[in-house]
């Protein structure tokens, strides 16, 4: 692996939708993360937290009108770094599919129903690798074979409706990897598939990352996928990262009540029979604006008055947390936090390490007290 600088550095990415006559919606509100060669970075959160919008913004696939994108996303290319968000439509088209590829959620609706699979694979080879005729067809068959589609020659002539769900997703992956992209974004690639196929697809993605050194951005709400695949994890809530950590600390010592809640709402096979799941109460609709305080506070079992004093900042775990003040926010973003083993959170009243198991235990108030003291 050449340089150790990140392949893609996203800083303070924001996406605001401003439809005609309707209020502005901040779907993504200052998200920062990096993608590195051969590593899988996860964006985790429930529906509506801004995961997919983030990926579409990076791909330049958001609509032209009614959307404002801010921040930067600098990609390291052989010819020098470029900010994806500032590229012309033409330059972006050249990068899309060749350096930067995406795998979508629903493989059936993501494939054109009236065009043979082969054509849908060869068109990208034709566009970016200049391949024509039988050479393109041979390569397409090769690609399908590599992603585990048996009898690829025959499949090339078939249409999406003739393939099974898993095959379709494999075909989409074949298209995504056709030009050996450096950065790949997978937006819930397994959501529409049944469990056994999910595992196969994840295995395939993992192999592609290790073999090709691709940087993969994995967007999911499935913590099982995260545990099995992601090296670094960003937990998103209401358009902002609320916790970021490498996989091990995140699962071992989650500190943000939202992360803890997500982990607590996974059904476990080894849980005692009859034990109820502990879902996070309410829905994303119950949010308050970040400018007023922690957006998660209305759904949080641990919130204190201090949570409503202003926007909390992203700070290293263990360090003094607080609400947004002078330069606190920028100082605490990604790079600064790397020194602390990369575990950061955005919470004024975090759960202690290991708090996952006793989330509902009456330790909450005690934790509040400790935090207050630390700060004082």
């Amino acid at each position: 692996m050449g340089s150790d600088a990140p392949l893609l550095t996203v800083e303070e990415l924001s996406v605001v939708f401003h439809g005609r006559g309707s209020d502005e919606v901040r779907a993504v509100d200052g998200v920062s993360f990096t993608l590195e060669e051969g590593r899988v970075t996860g964006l985790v959160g429930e529906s509506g937290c801004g995961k997919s919008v983030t990926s579409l913004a990076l791909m330049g696939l958001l609509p032209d009108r009614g959307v404002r994108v801010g921040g930067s996303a600098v990609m390291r290319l052989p010819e020098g770094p470029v900010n994806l968000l500032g590229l012309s439509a033409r330059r972006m088209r050249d990068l899309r599919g060749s350096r930067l590829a995406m795998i979508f959620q629903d493989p059936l609706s993501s494939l054109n129903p009236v065009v043979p699979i082969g054509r849908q694979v060869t068109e990208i080879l034709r566009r970016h690798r200049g391949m024509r005729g039988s050479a393109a067809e041979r390569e397409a068959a090769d690609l399908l074979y590599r992603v585990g589609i048996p009898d690829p020659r025959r499949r090339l002539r078939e249409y999406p409706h003739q393939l099974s769900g898993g095959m379709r997703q494999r075909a989409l992956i074949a298209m995504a990897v056709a030009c050996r992209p450096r950065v790949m974004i997978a937006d819930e690639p397994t959501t529409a598939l049944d469990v056994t196929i999910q595992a196969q697809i994840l295995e395939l993605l993992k192999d592609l990352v290790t073999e090709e050194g691709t940087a993969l951005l994995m967007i999911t709400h499935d913590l099982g996928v995260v545990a099995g695949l992601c090296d670094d994890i960003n937990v998103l809530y209401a358009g902002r990262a609320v916790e970021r950590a490498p996989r091990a600390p995140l699962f071992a010592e989650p500190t943000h009540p939202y992360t803890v809640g997500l982990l607590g709402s996974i059904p476990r096979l080894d849980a005692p029979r009859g034990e109820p799941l502990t879902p996070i109460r309410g829905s994303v609709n119950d949010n308050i604006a970040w400018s007023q305080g922690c957006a998660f506070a209305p759904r949080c079992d641990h919130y204190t008055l201090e949570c409503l004093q202003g926007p909390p900042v992203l700070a290293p775990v263990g360090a003094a947390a607080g609400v947004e003040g002078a330069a606190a926010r920028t100082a605490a973003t990604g790079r600064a936090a790397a020194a602390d083993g990369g575990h950061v959170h955005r919470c004024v009243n975090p759960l202690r390490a290991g708090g996952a198991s006793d989330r509902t235990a009456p330790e909450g108030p005690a934790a509040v007290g400790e935090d207050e003291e630390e700060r004082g």
Partner: protein
Amino acid sequence: MLRFLVRRLLQLIPTLGGLSILLFVWLQRLPGGPEYALLPDDATAEQRAQLRRSLGLDQPITVQYLAFLRRILQGDLGTSLNTGRPVTEEFFTRFPATFELAVTAMLIAVTVGVPLGYLAARKRGSVLDFAAVGGSLLGICTPVFFLAFLLKVVFAERLGLFPSAFRLSPGMSRTDLSGFVVLDGLRTGEFDVVRDALLHLALPGLALASIPLAVIVRMTRASVLEVVGEDYVRTANAKGLHPGTVRTRHVMRNAMLPVVTAIGLLTGSLFAGAVLTESVFAFPGVGSFVYAATQGRDYPVLTGFILLIATMYVLINLLVDISYSLLDPRVRAQ
């Protein structure tokens, strides 16, 4: 594909059979039979009854129907009461003119309507979009005979840009191979005939095109709006394909599916719509002949015309189904 074709052709039999029954019953129920049309108003009841007998109208209804069916299958649609010539023959000599007119109208409607609908969708909310949507509403609302008349008065009589009547200018000589003026002209190299024929087709073609054009603009617009939001269009863009490729292969190939169905149905209705247009422009096709037939209660001609139109509809529908199965692999599979 062959099996599909054979099955669809077999399905035509019950369709057309049912149609013949409907048509026959409808004719039976019509007030004022041929004895009123053929005989002077002061004819006696005895004279009318005698005519009914001679036409076989006193036979049991099933016998009449079978006789009716047999004649149709033999290509005998009876004799025109107005001209005294066989209806089939009258249609045969006039059909090429109507066919050319209908094709002209459809070509105008498709070549203008599809791109306009696409542009209106892509520039949604723009002046062009409003103009296209508003204009098509106007097109649907305006009666064809009124539009035909308006075009004739303005462009033919006032401005003198186009001829106001007939298929060819008087005195234009041509070699008649098939009755299709434009085709014959192209084959024999008589390009002055082609030019003259096209000028004569322009105004009636435009008038006849108004409704199909309006429908095609709206259908294309709605369909494109739906398709551009589809996931596979996003996939195509994510591949970095050129906008032209995305437009033709991914957007239009899908967006045209419902439009093709509409085009089929509209083509059928063109032959019916030709009745009014042709009569305004004195265009010597089936339409103006039928228009005259309605004036004179020429039942054999009317029956034949309905049968002709219905058959056209059914055949065009067959063509639509075939083209649909070529365009959409999901239909082929069934």
